[in-house]
């Protein structure tokens, strides 16, 4: 048999579990250690399991940068959305005595930052890998 068969089979089996673990770290950022930045790096490492071993390229760098622009604008707009209800930027939209709105604010910020970090690190290392093949 091909000597790379073991690596390929194991990486394809582990990929969904590492992705799920990264999503777990992002979504539980306000209860347990973790958050947006940490979960984003774990999700990027799950992508590279497939890219290194199986040579499957799912995203091109131009698409990644296009999505990142939209996400960064979304982050800025959501941070400044507190101006609409309170007149103060960098506060939640409905920053009130109710706990659920504060938790929703934290979770949305964590999700945006997590996806942004994933795409950023995937883009940076993909450029280096593509340059090595030329």
């Amino acid at each position, binding site marked *: 048999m091909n000597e790379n068969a073991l690596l390929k089979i194991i990486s394809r089996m582990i990929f969904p579990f590492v992705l799920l673990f990264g999503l777990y770290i992002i979504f539980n950022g306000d209860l347990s250690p973790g958050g947006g930045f940490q979960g984003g790096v774990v999700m990027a490492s799950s992508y590279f399991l497939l890219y290194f071993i199986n040579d499957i390229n799912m995203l091109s760098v131009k698409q990644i940068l296009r999505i990142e622009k939209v996400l*960064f604008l979304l982050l800025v707009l959501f941070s400044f959305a507190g101006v609409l209800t309170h007149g103060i930027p960098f506060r939640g939209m409905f920053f009130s005595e109710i706990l659920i709105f504060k938790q929703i604010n934290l979770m949305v910020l964590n999700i945006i930052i997590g996806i942004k970090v994933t795409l950023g690190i995937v883009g940076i290392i993909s*450029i280096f890998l593509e340059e090595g093949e030329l």
Partner: protein
Amino acid sequence: MKDWMSRLGIILVLAGVGYMFITMLPSLTAGYRFMTYNYFTQMTFLEAGAENYVTGIYLEYRLFDSLFEAAILFVVAAGILFMSRKDEERL
């Protein structure tokens, strides 16, 4: 002659830094050094709604810095893509 002078200078600087560090150690338990710690420990759940103090600090008290941290990641990716272009007519 310059060899032992530079070594003597390095030893003196290290001794000075070590003396300053040792004299700073007794004041670590003073009351005024815990003002920010007590504030963040007691008020993070009331103001940010997070049980994790680190999340409460970087997403509510210091959200402005997290904005620029996300911007740095984006600019780094775009900059590396720009620098790695070869054999293209337009920049």
